[in-house]
């Protein structure tokens, strides 16, 4: 609290926290030190972003700042001051006064932020009625004004939450927060779980409102790209601490902490001529046992002997960084690169030493053995449609509420042997349904799917297992995709037994080979683990290993990186690219993420509401899109100007810093 970076004096701080510590004390578990000594302040009218991977404590910090922590989480030390009132230990009643006085919160994705049995109008009456005595007509007027501010029609007032789409619900939540005439709004992952295009629209709305209404905002997100484009300042959080605090343009062009640099390297522009992606190996530390010294050191390619000590905060221009190595020229090792033309995974280099890329070598070993019995065959879809009966009409983005929903409407495409094709589109585009039909988990309502001469859509249920030796799927969610009760060795092993019929030593060898192939070495060690003992990235590798156990000719990957932190995206994509190159399998890559599609596919098909709107070579579709929807999808990606130079500005030790 004593020292404040000089530039912030031009904004009077609206919210400050000093020495903030949050403990999470679950029943029957060790206490987790989720926030460890955070000093921050937000000036009047500032737009601040708070970013980090999942598990780094950013949402907990946001909740602590808004005094919304619930048991078993509590503020263990430090103070939070809002508008010169210490709210750290304020009781419920005074806290309500503070909330009416302008501290508002918008929760993660807002999907469940509205009372399901109450109309939107009722929500406004509750909020507006709680702070001021207004007549019903006045409340309605105010509510209509607020709704128009978030671009919703007054008719929304008479809807129940379930009758609104996810994006609309989030807009209602924002309007409700605005009803408090907030001076500070904490947005906790405001766009997560929304469709890409909707995400962009919501962020634009937030930015416009901030300019019009003039509130101060803290935007918490895992998506650095999204935050950089929308904020004045960004705080990067790691293992319960703020490791870098910089003006957004400065961070975008010259990150000082290796973690920020690595997070930035996980972003890219899919329309560029050359696309490179970095990743961060490993996972954030377990905060029930806070690490000694620099918490990032185990994952840092720069770490050296000084990192055994706790780093100090160094002031840099208007911000600060907490790293022994700063300032250094930060060149983040890239894992995967794509230049116009054929795919080009990066071979192992000195930089990548810490990254588990044993994959390439192991795959190379397995090559030759692989394409044994069957030769690769093309997969063809002709005029495929799929209708779903909706039990209850729940409108989601782009889907009309009717008794019958056509998820896929007449799609024809051809995946040549060995080709990598991307299937992209927003939610409701039918891409996942299409993938499930191709692997035989769903049947088309009409049209045909053929693999070579085999009519896939006509397969009997008992013939499917044989088909699955040729076509396999990598599932989206590595948490739901593995049975929590079986060791991952069992899970992969069952697929080996069923599809390859191996027993005894052969079985064992194949199991170890597969674990090695997907970069889980030593295989014996990993095979015995239960899913919850592995990180998200490791689980997804297991999921891939299981799909490979069948030695498929066609691999359908359904959003294999969407549930993972961006820091893991590159390594999984790299692995997929390697596998494809080494096994000759064709790949159908389903995603909403154009960047990853650019990195692993040659052909791209853009789907919208069950129709193909555009297709062609990936780079030309992305770099010169012809359909407005493709243009919209591309525009929805937050792009970041990147360069790797250290900016001017002396770095000084922050005076009086404890630790």
């Amino acid at each position, binding site marked *: 609290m004593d020292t404040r970076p000089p530039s912030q004096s031009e904004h009077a701080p609206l919210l400050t926290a000093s020495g903030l510590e949050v403990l999470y004390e679950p029943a029957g578990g060790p206490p987790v030190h989720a926030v460890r000594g955070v000093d921050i302040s937000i000036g009047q009218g500032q737009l601040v972003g708070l970013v980090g991977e999942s598990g780094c404590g950013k949402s907990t910090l946001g909740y602590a700042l808004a005094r919304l922590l619930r048991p078993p989480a509590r503020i263990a030390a430090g103070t939070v001051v809002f508008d010169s009132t210490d709210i750290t230990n304020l009781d419920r009643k005074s806290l309500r006064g503070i909330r009416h006085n302008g501290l508002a919160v918008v929760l993660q994705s807002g999907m469940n932020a509205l009372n399901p049995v109450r109309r939107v109008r009722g929500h406004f009456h509750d909020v507006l009625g709680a702070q001021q005595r207004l007549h019903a007509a006045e409340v309605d007027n105010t509510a209509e004004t607020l709704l128009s501010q978030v671009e919703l029609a007054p008719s929304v007032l008479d809807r129940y939450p379930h009758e609104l789409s996810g994006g609309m619900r989030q807009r209602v939540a924002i309007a409700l927060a605005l009803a408090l005439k907030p001076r500070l709004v904490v947005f906790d992952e405001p766009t997560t779980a929304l469709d890409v295009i909707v995400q962009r629209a919501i962020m634009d709305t937030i930015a416009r409102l901030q300019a019009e209404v003039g509130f101060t905002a803290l935007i918490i997100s895992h998506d650095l790209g999204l935050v950089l484009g929308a904020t004045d300042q960004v705080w990067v959080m790691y293992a319960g601490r703020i490791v870098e605090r910089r003006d957004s343009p400065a961070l975008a062009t010259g990150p000082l902490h290796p973690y920020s640099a690595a997070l930035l390297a996980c972003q890219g522009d899919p329309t560029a001529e050359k696309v490179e992606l970095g990743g961060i190996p490993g996972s954030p530390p377990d905060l029930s046992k806070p690490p000694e010294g620099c918490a990032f050191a185990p994952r840092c390619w720069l770490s050296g002997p000084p990192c055994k000590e706790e780093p100090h905060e160094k002031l840099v221009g208007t911000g600060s960084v907490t790293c022994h190595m700063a300032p250094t020229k930060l060149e983040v090792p890239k894992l995967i690169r794509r230049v116009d033309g054929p795919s080009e995974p990066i071979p192992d280099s000195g930089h990548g030493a810490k990254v588990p890329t044993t994959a390439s070598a192991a795959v190379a070993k397995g090559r030759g053995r692989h394409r044994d019995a069957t030769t690769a065959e093309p997969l063809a879809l002709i005029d495929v449609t799929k209708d779903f009966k909706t039990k209850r009409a729940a409108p989601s983005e782009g889907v009309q509420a009717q008794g019958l929903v056509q998820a896929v409407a007449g799609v024809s495409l051809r995946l040549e042997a060995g080709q990598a094709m991307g299937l992209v589109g927003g939610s409701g585009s039918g891409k996942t349904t299409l993938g499930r039909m191709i692997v035989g988990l769903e049947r088309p309502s009409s049209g045909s799917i053929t693999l070579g001469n085999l009519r896939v859509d006509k397969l009997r249920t008992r013939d499917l297992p044989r088909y699955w030796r040729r076509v396999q*799927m990598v599932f989206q969610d590595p948490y*739901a995709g*593995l*049975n929590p009760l079986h060791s991952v060795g069992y899970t992969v092993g*069952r*697929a080996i037994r*069923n599809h390859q019929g191996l027993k005894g030593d052969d079985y064992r060898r194949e199991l170890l080979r597969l674990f090695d192939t997907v970069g889980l070495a030593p295989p014996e060690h990993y095979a015995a683990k239960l899913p919850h003992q592995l990180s998200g990235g490791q689980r997804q590798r297991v*999921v891939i290993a299981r799909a490979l*156990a*069948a030695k498929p000719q066609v691999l359908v990957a359904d959003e294999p990186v969407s549930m993972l932190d961006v820091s893991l995206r590159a390594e999984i994509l790299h692995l997929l690219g390697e596998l494809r190159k080494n096994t000759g399998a064709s790949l159908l890559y389903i995603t909403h993420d154009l960047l990853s599609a650019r990195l692993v596919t040659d052909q791209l098909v853009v789907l919208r509401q069950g129709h193909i709107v555009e297709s062609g070579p990936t780079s030309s579709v992305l770099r010169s899109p012809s359909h407005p929807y493709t243009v919209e999808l591309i525009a929805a990606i937050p792009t970041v100007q990147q360069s790797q130079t250290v900016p001017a500005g002396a770095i000084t030790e922050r005076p009086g810093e404890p630790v």
Partner: protein
Amino acid sequence: MRTTIFRVAATLWANRKARAGLSILFVFAAVAVLAPLLAPYSPTATNFARSAPASWSHPLGTTGSGQDALSQLLYGTRISLFVGFGAGLAATIVAMLVGVVAGYARGPIEVILGFATNLFLVIPGLPLMIVLAAYLPTRGVGTILVVVSVTGWAWGARVLRSQTATLAAREFVAAARLAGEGIWRIVWHEIVPNMVSLLAASFFGASTAAVLAEAGLEFLGLGNPSTISWGTMLFWAQNSNALLTGQWALLVAPGLCIALLASAMSLVNFGIDAIGNPRLRER
């Protein structure tokens, strides 16, 4: 499967309520096994003074036909536990079969089983039991066991059905299919082990209901009045107007035992609830 059961048991024991419930159950089980050693007299011996009030030799008094009430109470534990756990087990097995099949199957089987479950759920159980017991030519513990099992499975089936449907929609089940697993393997190795705590909950739920139903049926005289159980003790006490003669212990003691047994099972179930729903966990 076995490790899952151990895991659930360990978590249960860690819960205060569940531990209390399990301890009471252990005590009852011990009493049931050791009844011959614990009981001062044979429960069927009728050679005492009739309707005697409590005394040192007969702490709970004697019944209208001159049996020692304490010995009856101790021996009666056996029937209650047997019927409770027996019917609980039978009902849970039926519930599991119906629930898992209805939750995993598609088409007419799903519809029919679902409908049967809902029907048995709304048909009032006790009247159905009474009618069944009245029609059956033999009366006794076996009959009650059958009747209680037949009517007690629906609740568990409903819960297990929706859980099966939830699990079946999870990606790991689709993934197991793609890994070439057969339908039975998926059901027994992927789905059922993930429902162990729900199975335990339906078991204890059904057992609680069975204990209460058994007592009710015997109290109504629909059991074999010559068996020694808490229900028949209440039946005889009521029939000999024990209350009006001031022998309240004949009524209170078996009633308390029934309540204690039933609450012990409920306590275990609260513990199981807490496993499945972390929000209910005690801090």
